[in-house]
C-alpha cells in the first residue's frame, strides 16, 4: 500500500523544514522516499493549502495507573459532563478531567496526538499502568518508573553503596517495570511523609535515612547518564505549590551538577514570596536559569481555569494542599514502602488571586524560555487542566492579542503581579511543531517519532489552515497512525493499537540476588511477580507491540 500526500505545507523542525510545500509518501506504516515514476499509488490525498506536521507527543500526561483510576472512581459527577456515546467504531465511555482509557485514546487521537507518556509508574503498580495503557487505543505509550522514595534505593544510598550498584538497581527497575525513563517525585519526600515529616527542602535531611533530596537527585541523574538512558532524570521537584519553591527549583537544577535533568510541571515550582499575598511569580528567575543551563529541559504544567483533578505521586504535597480540594474530597495513600499517591480535585478560578497568577506564571515561563527544544507543552494532565485544553493553550502562545484579552479578565491583583501583559512574543507554527513533536521525540530517544523524514513512522497530522490556532489544532483534517487514517475532521475513523515504548539498559544481574532476599523478608509479593516479563507486557498491553529504544552505556 503506497500512499501519497500531495502538496501540503510541511512543518518538520527535525528536518529543518519550516513551511515547505512538498509531497510525502507512505508505505507499510513508514515514510518512504519518492518512488519511481511508474510505481502504483494506492491512495492520494490532496493537501493543497493544508498544514502538515508529525503526530504530536505528550511527554507528561497521567493517563493510566492506580491514582488515575482512583480519580475516575471519585468523580462520577464530573464524568456526567462529558459522556461519549458509542458509535460503530468507538465504545461508550466518559471523558473530561479523568477520562477513561478509551476516551483518552479517542480524544488524543482526534487532536492529532499519536504518543503519550505516563510519567508516574509506581514499579509495584506497573502492571496496572500497562493494562490501562493497553486499553488506551491508537496512541503509542510509555511510562517513567518512580524511584527515589523506595526503601531499597534509599537504603543503598544511606549505606553509601557504589554508584555502579545503584545503576544496576535503576536498570533492573526499568526492566522490571517495563518503562522508558525514570522519574523522581519530591525526592525522598514521599518516604519522609511516612515518617511524619511534612516538608523536605532540597538540602534538608530525611529523618530516617539521613539523606537529602540533593543527594538523591545527584545519584539518579548520574545513574541515567551512566546507563545511557536517552531520557534524563524526570524530576518533580521538592516543595510543589509552596511560595518560595522557585528557590528550591533553582537548587534542584544545580543538584544535577551539569548532567541532563528534566524538570516537570515547572509552573507549580516557580512561586516567589513577594507582594501583599506573599505569593509571586518566580518565572523570570526560572526562565533565566533554563536559558543559561543547556543541561536543563522542562515541561510547563500550565493551569487552565475550570474544574479538574490533581493526581500525583507526591502524597506529602497533596496532603498539604488537600484543604483546597474542590469538591471537598481527597485521597492520600502510602504505597508498599515504594511510593505514594494523592488525588485532590481542584477548580482553578480566574477570580482567585493565586490561581490567576499560576495561570500567568505558566505562560510567562513559556514565553521567556528562548529555546523551544528544551520546553514542552503540557498541562500535566489532569493536574493543571485536562489535555483537551491544548488547542486553547496553543492559541494563548501564538496570539498575543488573545492572550492580553484573557489576561485583562483575571483577578486584578494578579494582573499587577505579572509581566505577561508586556511580553510580545508569539510562538510560530514551527516553534509549536518543535515543542510538541521534534523536541519530545528527541529527549525521549524516539528516532521514529516527531518528524516526517524518510524512515520515520507515518504518524502524520494534517490541519486546515485557520487564523485561529485553537480551531486549527482542535480538529485536524486527517490523522494518520503508522500510515493508517485513524481520525478525520476530529472524529475517529479507525481503531488501532499503539506500541509500548521501553528501554532495556545493560546491567549486572547480580543485583537481583540481593533484591530477592530483600523481597522475601520485607515485601508482600514475590520478586518474580514484581517483574513484568516481555510476554506479560504484551498480555497487559492487549497485544501491544513493544519497541525497545537503544541505550548507550557510558563507562562510569
Amino acid at each position, binding site marked *: 500500500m503506497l500512499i501519497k500526500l500531495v502538496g501540503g505545507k510541511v512543518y518538520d523542525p527535525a528536518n529543518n523544514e519550516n513551511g515547505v510545500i512538498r509531497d510525502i509518501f507512505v508505505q507499510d506504516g513508514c515514510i518512504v522516499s519518492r518512488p519511481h515514476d511508474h510505481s502504483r499509488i494506492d491512495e492520494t490525498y490532496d493537501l493543497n493549502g493544508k498544514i502538515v506536521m508529525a503526530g504530536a507527543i505528550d511527554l507528561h500526561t497521567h493517563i493510566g495507573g492506580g491514582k488515575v483510576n482512583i480519580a475516575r472512581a471519585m468523580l462520577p459527577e464530573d464524568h456526567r459532563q462529558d459522556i461519549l456515546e458509542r458509535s460503530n467504531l468507538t465504545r461508550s465511555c466518559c471523558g473530561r478531567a479523568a477520562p477513561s482509557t478509551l476516551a483518552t485514546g479517542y480524544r488524543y487521537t482526534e487532536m492529532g496526538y499519536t504518543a503519550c507518556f505516563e510519567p508516574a509508574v509506581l514499579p509495584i503498580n506497573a502492571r496496572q499502568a500497562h493494562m490501562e495503557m493497553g486499553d488506551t487505543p491508537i496512541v503509542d505509550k510509555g511510562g517513567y518508573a518512580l524511584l527515589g522514595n523506595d526503601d531499597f534505593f534509599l537504603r543503598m544510598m544511606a549505606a553509601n553503596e557504589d554508584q555502579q550498584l545503584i545503576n544496576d538497581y535503576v536498570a533492573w527497575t526499568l526492566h522490571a517495570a517495563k518503562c522508558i525513563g525514570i522519574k523522581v517525585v519530591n525526592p525522598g519526600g514521599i518516604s519522609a511523609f511516612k515518617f511524619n515529616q511534612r516538608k523536605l527542602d532540597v538540602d534538608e535531611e530525611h529523618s530516617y535515612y539521613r539523606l537529602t533530596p540533593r543527594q538523591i537527585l545527584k545519584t539518579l541523574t548520574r545513574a541515567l547518564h551512566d546507563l545511557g538512558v536517552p531520557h534524563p532524570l524526570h524530576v518533580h521537584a521538592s516543595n510543589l505549590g509552596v511560595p518560595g519553591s522557585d528557590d528550591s527549583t533553582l537548587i534542584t537544577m544545580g543538584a544535577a551538577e551539569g548532567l541532563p535533568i528534566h524538570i516537570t510541571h515547572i509552573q507549580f515550582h516557580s512561586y516567589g514570596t513577594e507582594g501583599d499575598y506573599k505569593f509571586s511569580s518566580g518565572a523570570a528567575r526560572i526562565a533565566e536559569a533554563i536559558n543559561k543551563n543547556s543541561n536543563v529541559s522542562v515541561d510547563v504544567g500550565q493551569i487552565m481555569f475550570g474544574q479538574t483533578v490533581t493526581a500525583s505521586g507526591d502524597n506529602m504535597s497533596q496532603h498539604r494542599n488537600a484543604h483546597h480540594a474542590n469538591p471537598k474530597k481527597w485521597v492520600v495513600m*502510602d504505597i508498599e514502602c515504594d511510593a505514594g499517591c494523592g488525588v485532590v480535585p481542584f477548580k482553578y478560578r480566574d477570580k482567585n488571586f493565586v490561581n490567576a497568577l499560576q495561570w500567568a506564571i505558566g505562560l510567562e515561563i513559556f514565553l521567556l524560555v528562548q529555546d523551544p527544544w528544551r520546553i514542552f507543552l503540557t498541562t500535566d494532565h489532569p493536574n493543571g487542566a485536562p489535555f483537551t485544553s491544548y488547542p486553547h493553550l496553543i492559541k494563548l502562545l501564538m496570539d498575543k492579542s488573545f492572550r492580553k484579552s484573557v489576561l485583562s479578565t483575571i483577578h486584578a491583583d494578579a494582573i499587577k503581579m505579572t509581566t505577561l501583559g508586556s511580553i510580545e512574543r508569539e510562538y510560530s507554527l514551527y516553534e509549536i511543531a518543535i515543542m510538541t513533536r521534534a523536541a519530545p521525540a528527541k529527549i525521549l530517544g524516539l528516532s521514529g517519532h516527531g518528524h516526517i523524514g524518510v524512515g520515520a513512522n507515518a504518524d502524520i497530522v494534517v490541519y486546515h489552515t485557520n487564523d485561529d490556532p485553537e480551531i486549527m489544532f482542535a480538529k485536524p483534517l486527517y490523522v494518520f497512525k503508522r500510515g493508517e487514517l485513524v481520525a478525520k475532521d476530529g472524529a475517529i475513523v479507525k481503531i488501532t493499537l499503539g506500541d509500548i515504548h521501553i528501554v532495556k539498559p545493560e546491567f549486572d544481574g547480580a543485583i537481583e540476588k540481593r533484591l530477592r532476599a530483600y523481597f522475601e523478608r520485607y515485601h*508482600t509479593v514475590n520478586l518474580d*511477580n514484581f517483574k513484568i516479563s516481555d510476554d506479560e507486557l504484551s498480555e497487559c498491553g492487549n497485544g501491544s507491540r513493544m519497541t525497545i529504544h537503544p541505550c548507550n552505556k557510558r563507562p562510569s
Partner: protein
Amino acid sequence: MNKLASRNNITCPFCGLVCDDLSTSLINEKLEVTANGCSLSKLAFAQLSSVNASDLRPRVSGKPVGDNELGHAIAEAAGLLRGSAQPLFSGLMTDVSGMRAITSLADRCGAILDHPNSAALTRNLSVLQNSGWITTTFSEVKNRADLIVLVGTDAVTRFPRFFERLVWNKDHLFSEELKREIVYLGDIKNTQPGVAPNGRQPLVIPCNQEKLGEIMGALRCIATGKHIEATEIAGVSIQVLEKLISKLSNARYGVIVWAVADLDFPHAELTIQSLCELVKYLNKTTRTCGLPLGGNDSDLTANQVTTWQIGFSLPVSLANGRPSYDPHHFTTTSLLAQGAVDTLLWVSSYQAQRTPPATKIPSIVLGCAGMQFENEPDVFIPVATPGLDHSGHIFRSDTVVALPLRQLRTNSLPAVAHVIGALQKLL
C-alpha cells in the same frame, strides 16, 4: 494428560490478600495446596479438583451438548442476547482478560454491568466520592505499623492469613523489634489471631456493629478535644475510648482496618466515612492510615477494569450506548426485582457455590464446572478458573497490586475471555 507436578510461589485468587507463596501439587488430576494454604484456598482447590468429566460439557436447556459443540452453546447464548432488549451482565467473577471481554460485549449489547458484591463496593465508593480517605497498603502495614485497630472485622474470617502475613512477621524494615499493639472494636468473632507470638493480648472493645458509627463519632469528638457529656457510648466507657485515642495519637504509624463486607447494615457507609474522617484528623499531627480489606470474589478486579475502561465504577449501565452510573438502581437484586432486565448473563469462574440469583428471565451462565442450579439456566457453559486452568491477573485488596495467576493443570475448559469473545463475534 495431567502429570504429577509440584509448584511453588503460586498465586491464590480466593481472597483479597492474593497470597503468592502457595505450593501446590497435582496428583491424579487432583490439585492440592501443600504449603501456605489457608482454609479458603484449601477448600477451593479441593472443590475445583473434584469435577467429573461430564461436568465439563456445556448444556443447552439442560441437555449436554455433544463433543466439540461448545460453539453450539455459544450460538444459543448469542441468540438470547440478540433477542434481549435489556440484558444484565452480573457475577463478573473472573480475571482482567475476562473483564476486558465482558465490558466489550456489554458495550455491544447495551448491557448493565454489576457484581454481586456491588452493594458493599458502593459503601466504600460512596465514601470515596463524598469525602475520600487516607489509606495504606500491605507492605507498609507489615513493616511500619505499631498499632493496628480492627473495626468491625476479625480480618481472618474473610482473609485468613492477614495476621500471619502482615502482622506477626519477624522482619521489619524500620526497627529491630516492632512492638505491635492490636485493638479490636466491634462484634468480633475471632480475636485469637490478635494474640502476639509472645502472648501479648489484644485490647478488645466489644460493641454492636450498628453502633460503630456512634463510637467513631465519639472518637472524633475526643480526638478534636470536644467535651462529651455521656459516660459511655454504645456500652463502651468514655475512658476506654479516650485510651484508644491516646494510643492512636501516640502511635508512630497507626492503621485502622475495616472490611466493608463485615459492615453490612443500613447506612454503614456513614460509619466508614466517620472512620475515614477520624484518620484524616489524626494525620494533622501523626501518621495514621486506613486499610480497607476487600477484593474477594474478584470484585475489585471487576471494578478496576470497568472504571478504567468506562470511567464509571460498578454497577454501570451501557444501555442505549451511553454509560450511566446509579449504584442504587443498577444492582442485580433490584433490577431483577423490578423486572428491569430481560436476560441475565452470569459469570462465576472461581467458586461453584457462587451461583446466579433465582430468576425467571432467560439466563446464560458461564460458571465453574460442577455448578449446581436450582433452576437450570437456558445455557450453561462450564469455564476455566483463572489461576488453575489458565494464567491471568487479579487485583489485591489494596487495588495497587495486580498479581499474575498461573496455569496449574490442563483441561478442556475454555477461559471466560474466550467464550465471551466468540459470543461477541456472533452478534
